[in-house]
């Protein structure tokens, strides 16, 4: 109870405070402090849930079960490490004149607010609030993406806003349909949008309505997840915003949107006896993986490259959740975790690399390992990890997903094989010369923040070799919940 309030309150308060005081040198530290506070609160909340089991508080408004608490902890953690990274990064940006004090004020306030909306989306029990929070997350990130006010960033932000706005409007329609179906059973009072209540009666929900509702919800939230063909905003937004924002977009927002999809899927699965929802998710997931893999090979901008890689990985997770079952769900959850950690680590490294070379174009980035071994190795290892090279955790989840697919959905494996191969070729052929080769670089005015990169990668490495029992239990319970 108090933990939930803390988890939500700290970022909200931080946001207001940062907005109120304006940009001071201390703002970045306040940002870090608020993120740290959130993380601590989330950790305490996690500990509480792990020991006491799920909780349902504040007039059933908030609900914490193993599924979302793990995402809360992850979100708070990556939010914290990103704030660590963003301090030197934004300082360098400011010194290079890309942002001014007013923008930094906006940046810090919105950063905290964005964290707040994501945590709210995760913690709420109300499908309506979930929608509201996701829409709010879109709004805050639109402002973050357009922070530089360059033509490209405006274009990206505009597309992001319109596409996600429209997309998420479909999700609202889906939510209304859900409400429409549930209201008959639960009454028009607040209960009909509460996930816990819906979950209890899901088998009695009207299948026709639910299947249509799921289409709207999937198209809606799927836009935010970045499922092909709804993904078009994603690379633009990732590439044009400040790198810390790209990191949280890729690492966190996509996860939260996928969380919403999965929550809906659980209800629909309960209501519809056929494999309708499964097939839909598998189809979208597979399409995303394949299309993203091919698009990867056409990239010239390093951040766009990794944005497409996020689409690919979200496709894999969606596919896994689509398959369902204990192993696939477990793998999907693991993949969400490791993808978010790895991808944000990559963006941290990429951020410093682009600052060091002054360009986001990959042709201009060369020989990082020679000029700046930490950044170069960070990028190299991160890339290998995200490409599913053992012993990193991404491989662990891909292992489970692929072997399960081979058993349950053998038709899908050729696509996965081709897509993973193409993606590997595309990404690695581009990252290799950036890390290796003849160096091109200038000095950075501040020391890069590489600790977050290596902390993330270390965790990912650990997850590939050894998943702590408590985490494993946690995944198992969550996988069970997803069904």
């Amino acid at each position: 109870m108090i933990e939930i309030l803390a988890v939500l309150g700290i970022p909200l308060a931080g946001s207001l405070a940062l907005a109120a005081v304006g940009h001071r040198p201390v703002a970045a530290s306040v940002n870090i402090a608020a993120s740290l506070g959130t993380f601590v609160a989330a950790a305490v909340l996690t500990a509480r849930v792990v020991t006491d089991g799920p909780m349902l508080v504040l007039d059933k408004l908030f609900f914490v079960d193993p599924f979302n608490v793990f995402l809360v902890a992850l979100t708070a953690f990556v939010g914290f490490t990103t704030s660590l990274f963003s301090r030197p990064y934004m300082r360098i940006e400011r010194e290079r004149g890309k942002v001014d004090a007013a923008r930094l004020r906006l940046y810090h306030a919105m950063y905290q607010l964005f964290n707040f909306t994501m945590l709210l989306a995760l913690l709420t029990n109300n499908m309506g609030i979930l929608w509201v929070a996701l829409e709010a997350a879109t709004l805050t990130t639109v402002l973050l993406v357009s922070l530089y006010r360059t033509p490209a960033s405006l274009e990206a932000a505009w597309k992001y806003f319109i596409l996600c706005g429209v997309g998420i409007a479909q999700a609202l329609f889906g939510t209304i349909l859900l409400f429409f179906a549930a209201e008959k059973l639960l009454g028009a009072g607040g209960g009909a949008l509460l996930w816990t209540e819906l979950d209890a009666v899901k088998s009695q929900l009207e299948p026709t309505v639910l299947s249509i509702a799921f289409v709207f919800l999937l198209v809606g939230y799927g836009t935010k997840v970045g499922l092909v063909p709804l993904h078009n905003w994603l690379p633009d937004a990732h590439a044009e915003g400040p790198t810390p924002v790209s990191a949280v977009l890729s690492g966190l927002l996509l996860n939260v949107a996928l969380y919403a999809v999965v929550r809906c899927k659980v209800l629909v699965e309960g209501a519809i006896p056929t494999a309708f929802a499964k097939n839909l998710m598998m189809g979208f997931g597979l399409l995303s993986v394949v299309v993203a893999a091919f698009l990867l090979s056409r990239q010239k901008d390093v951040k766009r490259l990794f944005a497409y890689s996020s689409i690919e990985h979200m496709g894999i997770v969606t596919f896994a959740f689509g398959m369902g079952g204990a192993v696939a769900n477990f793998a999907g959850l693991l993949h969400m975790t490791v993808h978010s950690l790895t991808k944000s680590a990559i963006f941290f490294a990429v951020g410093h690399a682009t600052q060091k070379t002054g360009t986001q174009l990959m042709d201009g980035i060369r020989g990082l390992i020679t000029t700046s071994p930490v950044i170069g190795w960070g990028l190299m290892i991160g890339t290998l990890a995200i490409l599913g090279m053992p012993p990193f955790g991404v491989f662990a989840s891909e292992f489970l997903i692929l072997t399960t697919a081979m058993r349950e959905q053998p038709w899908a494996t050729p696509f996965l094989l081709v897509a993973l191969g193409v993606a590997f070729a595309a990404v690695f052929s581009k990252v290799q010369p950036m890390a290796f080769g003849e160096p091109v670089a200038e000095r950075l005015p501040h020391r890069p923040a590489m600790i977050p990169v290596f902390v993330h990668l270390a965790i990912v490495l650990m997850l590939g070799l050894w998943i702590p029992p408590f985490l494993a239990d946690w995944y198992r319970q969550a996988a069970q919940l997803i069904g």
Partner: protein
Amino acid sequence: MATLPLYAQFINLLAALLLLLSFAMLAQRRVLSLIDLFAAQGLALAASTAIVAYGTGQHHLYWSAGLTLILKVFLLPWILYRLIRKLDVKWDVEGLINVPTTMLIGIVLVVFAFNLAAPISQLASTVTRATLGIAMACVMLSFLMMITRRKAIPQVIGFLSMENGLFFAATSATYGMPMVVELGIALDVLVGVLILGVFFFQIREQFDSLDLRHLEKLKEGE
């Protein structure tokens, strides 16, 4: 149908009006008229919400109706008007597809939406269930409008009109969502429009125009 209570008949009437307004917006070429139509749609929405509240005794819907009235009939159109005046936008709104074709596609969409909604409507407990199809049609028509418009402001109006359709679905088909959700949605819409307003200025500052053709630089195809 004869047994339908009077208020329900009114609602159906307003629903038809909403649909008509959606078509009108789809066909409208001038920005200011578009805003007027949007305001009219808001008014119809507020009225229908109030009638539902009256007819079913769902008192929180009065709040919704009031909120709609303030937000969609006064506040948003006012903001848009101000924006247009400040931005000094040209009057005509070019579409990507010509109007008759758009209308034809619109009709097809309406048929599709009705067909889709028909089986669902049968299940509803509310008297105004038939309106679900209209709400869905409104959403789709707004979607179509967003697709066919080349300028930023009409696109945003399309977006808002879609919100109207959704809201109509929420009130008429289900007697309204819980209040806290509705407040949240309203807040989001408002903030969204404000942000978009800021955006218009920035876009115009950068591109000297609100034409979306300038926003086509980020792409993959050659």
